[in-house]
């Protein structure tokens, strides 16, 4: 059957026939790099236009509707605008760190792409510790924000950086606990093992209410970790102009913007992998005919469908809820999410030991 993994294997064989092993590795790395960068570009374009349309419809507006059919080319036009804009560096800024920060942000998002299974047997790096790797690398992203905030030499930037630092560091904990509950059920950190354990049903169905609680905690925590409303204190435009990227313009700003959207995609992909079965099709018990039809849909479509469903959820949150204050934000994490997450982890562990899940 036609699938992405077949194409990948075919490319690998073709390269193997024509070049020596070392060159094959080099070529494949280059191809993977180009693919990741183009995925970045495409995701940036799609997610920005999706966000603007979703926000418009939720606020009874029309959204962008001038450039291209129904305004679908608006984000392409914006990209061109950002590309030709002057990328300024303010006079009092720490120039080295100021220019380094956006690249660090984008590199972190690129690294996070590695262990995601985009389709059946198709991922960049089948890592033994996939989930831990993701939560480890994503903790580096806070550094780029702190760096940008400090190097801008601007009070708004610094305040935004401080807030986002406190926010990301604390919400990482509950995101980690939510992820751990699935790891406990699966007994593996490997993304492929986690997906394979959901062949007979996704964890959100198999895991009863403890998994639902972890799913909700996970959603809240990733919304906070990606600095999106209602947790967008780091860039709270009504208080801090633009928070940590106040001083950035042109392509450097675009890199931050892109990194934010790609991070949203990545955390949603992780959520889809952990709770919604990654590329696993939707199966119901013993309905052989139904299951067969579901198998016919390509695995990559399943993966992207689930991921975009979660992205839509996060956008839905953003355009519904008002922004939290910093004390409310920390209260929510330390007084509600973390204790509930810990008790929930205990419940999940008991469930895994007693085999209460299907």
């Amino acid at each position, binding site marked *: 059957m036609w699938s992405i993994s077949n194409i990948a294997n075919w490319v690998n064989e073709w390269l193997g026939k024509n070049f020596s092993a070392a060159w094959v590795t080099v070529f494949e790395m280059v191809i993977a790099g180009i693919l990741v960068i183009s995925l970045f570009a495409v995701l940036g374009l799609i997610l920005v236009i999706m966000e603007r349309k979703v926000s418009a419809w939720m606020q009874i507006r029309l959204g962008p509707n001038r450039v291209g059919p129904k305004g679908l080319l608006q984000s392409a036009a914006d990209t061109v605008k950002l590309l030709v804009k002057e990328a300024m560096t303010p006079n009092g800024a720490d120039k080295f760190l100021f220019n380094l920060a956006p690249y660090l942000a984008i590199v972190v998002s690129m690294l996070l792409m590695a262990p995601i299974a985009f389709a059946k047997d198709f991922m960049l790096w089948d*890592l033994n510790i996939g989930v831990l790797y993701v939560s480890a690398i994503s903790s*580096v992203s806070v550094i780029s924000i702190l760096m940008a905030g400090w190097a801008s030499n601007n009070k708004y930037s610094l305040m935004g950086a401080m807030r986002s630092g406190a926010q990301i560091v604390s919400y990482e904990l509950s995101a980690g606990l939510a992820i751990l509950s699935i790891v406990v059920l699966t007994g593996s*950190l490997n993304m492929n093992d986690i997906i394979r354990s959901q062949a007979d049903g996704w964890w959100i169905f198999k895991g009863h209410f403890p998994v639902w609680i972890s799913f909700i905690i996970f959603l809240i925590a990733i919304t906070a970790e990606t600095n999106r409303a209602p947790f967008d204190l780091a860039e709270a435009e009504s208080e801090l102009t633009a928070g940590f990227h106040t001083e950035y313009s042109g392509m450097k700003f675009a890199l931050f913007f892109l990194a934010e959207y790609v991070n949203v995609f990545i955390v949603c992909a992780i959520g889809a992998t952990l709770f919604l079965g990654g590329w696993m099709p939707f199966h119901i018990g013993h309905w052989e005919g139904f299951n067969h039809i579901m198998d016919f849909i390509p695995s990559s479509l399943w993966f992207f469908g689930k991921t975009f469903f979660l992205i839509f959820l996060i956008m839905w949150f953003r355009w519904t809820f008002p922004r939290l204050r910093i004390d409310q934000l920390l209260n929510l994490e330390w007084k509600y999410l973390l204790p509930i997450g810990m008790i929930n982890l205990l419940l999940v562990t008991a469930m895994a030991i007693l085999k209460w899940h299907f």
Partner: protein
Amino acid sequence: MNGSTIIFYMLAALILGSGFLSVTTRQIFRAAIFLLFSLIGVAGMYFWMDYEFIAAVQIVVYVGGITVLIIFSIFLTQQAGEKLPEQSMSRMLFAALAAFCGFALILLQIAKHTFTNSTTTITAPTVENIGNEMLGVNKGGMALPFEVVSVLLLAALVGCIVIALRQKTQQTN
């Protein structure tokens, strides 16, 4: 020289170079950032050795935890963008001497020591093996030290909460 060796030398250059810059720079925030790169380089070294778990833990603990803590304390204490004063010559000299002595001592020890091949069976550094070893109660199991460390951490946590609570009651009075 194959690809793996090239990567090793690149990582080593990253670790040593950013470590050196971290001590020589006069801006404290830059020093923290260079320290961060040095620690990332160490994590890269673990990845290079295929010790993925250790590498991820290195990133979680040192990069995501300790460096962020250092940066936070810089934010809360240091004046923005101000350079540290130049050190006096004698101080630099003594510091260099102390560093050299330490380095020489370690080098001497390494040169004296004869490295023999390990005879214990090597367990693959997978998460499963690490977990089983960590909580194993058999011979060589680490359950007791693990629990002792966790009790220590719990005591630290409780201590933090007590300190935080006391301040709050004083304020209300």
